[in-house]
């Protein structure tokens, strides 16, 4: 069964993502901060990681850097999920090794499409705003 790790500090958003993905038949792991997320990723090796950027203490970029720096998690597709819509933020995330970028607020379809793209091995970055995919 496909496993998705959700790293999101906002309880309401994290819980909603957990339930949506649960309804879609995914096995869902959830973490409310980057450190716990890294630990879960190393332990469970999820198929896709959805990671928020704006988190206290260890933000999404730091989490991504740590994931890419660890042999166990270096190749797991990571989709950054953020309210930051600036091109510079997207490019920064992709430069650190993100496979996709989803902007908040996202639609359920946008969320599922971003996951499916990664599961299909697609290198494209996804966006709920309908922007052209960006290559990681």
């Amino acid at each position, binding site marked *: 069964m496909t496993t998705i790790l959700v790293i999101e500090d906002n309880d309401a958003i994290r819980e909603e993502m957990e339930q949506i993905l649960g*309804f879609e038949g995914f096995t869902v792991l959830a973490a409310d901060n980057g450190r716990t997320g890294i630990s879960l990723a190393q332990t469970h090796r999820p198929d896709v990681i959805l990671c928020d950027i704006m988190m206290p203490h260890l933000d999404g970029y730091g989490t991504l850097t740590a994931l890419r720096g660890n042999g166990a998690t270096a190749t797991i597709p990571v989709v950054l999920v953020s309210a930051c819509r600036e091109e510079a933020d997207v490019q920064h995330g992709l430069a650190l090794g993100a496979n996709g970028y989803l902007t908040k607020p996202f639609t*359920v379809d946008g969320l599922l499409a971003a996951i499916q793209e990664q599961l299909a091995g697609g290198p494209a970055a996804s966006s709920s705003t309908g922007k052209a995919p960006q290559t990681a």
Partner: protein
Amino acid sequence: MDPELTQATERRALALFRADQQRLHQHTDHLFAGLMVLQWLAGIAAAFWISPRAWAGTVSWPHLHVWAAVYLGGTISLLPIVLALVRPGRLSTRLVIAVGQGLTSALLIHLTGGRIETHFHVFGSIAFLSFYRDWRVLVPVTLVVSADHLVRGIYWPESVYGVLSASGWRWFEHTGWMLFEDVFVIASCRRGVREMRSIATRQAELETANALVERGKLAELRSRFVSMASHEFRTPLTTILAACQSLVRYIDHMTAEQRRDRLAKIETEVQHMTGLLDDVLTIGKADAGKLDFEPAAVDLKRLCEEIVAEAQTTAAATQRLLFACADGLAPVAVDPKLVRRILGNLLTNAVKYSPVDATVSCQVAVQDGQPVFEVRDQGIGIPTEDRARLFEPFHRGTNVGKIPGSGLGLAITKKAVEIHGGTIAVESSVGKGTTFVVRLGCPEGARG
């Protein structure tokens, strides 16, 4: 500078110059109104002193000079005085005053029997008229005096030169001296006008520069607001959108509790967004000086305990929030809603910007009748370069990274403190922590 701005600056400079020139003309008109009254009275006094009465044997009557000083002097002065008072600043008023001044010179010269000293009144008039910084007023005074000297020099020389017979060149000589003075006065007027233009141009340029600075500040404020709104509104919108779509998409798979849970989330997030909007409106009201202030006697310890308990809900489970307050504090007069803003913002900031295992302490006391709050954290600290702008709306520390926030909390806190007549002080060390100390004033008539 862009051409449109340059043109606007030039237009402003011209308007400033014209306004300044108008003020100068009006002011000088009023000066002349006073001067002409004095000259009129001086002429009457001179007539009474020099030739008060005419005699025929033992019979006497007021000398014709006295009547001339009173009526002719009055006639000459009346119109310029009226115009100076009723229509100051107009060219026609200045020209009439110049004519009146020339005629007054002629009358005074006549009343003093053509004394050469009185001729200096003409030069004084020209000098005084130069106050207008308008060379055109010199034309009528020069023409009037010159014509008077020419005509009276021929037909009544003793009244203008004090001699029965005067050379025809005398008119020419006097006119020449007037023209000689005119040349220098005209040069002075032109220089004065150039200086006025220069000052107006500099003032307009300064105004433009200030406007650009203000525009820049406004643009920066707008940019910070847009950036904050973008981040802070997207998070609750994400929850709302996801919850709504979940309800539509998976409602048949949801339990009743799951449905209620989503509706509750939507309600919570809407409240969060409303709170954010309230903050924006609060800072707007505070900036406009319209913040509500309703002080009342409150139990400070109880109020602060409630606020600390609310702040505790935003802290991580591993964060410790310590509260210290002496028992038996006398009630103090504060606005409880604003105190919630003050202490609530300081505590949630302390929690938000501190590590998950940090301790935040809050001490509340009353010193000299004034409530004092101290909130100390072990957080990221405030860089020195941010301190000056710490309380500006939408400004956030350069070291906050991706920690969410609107940049409104401290701005509202400061406004709430100020409306209490209080002060807020901050000590901070980057990487070690921050301490805020708030002292609230005690409003008169509201003591508990």
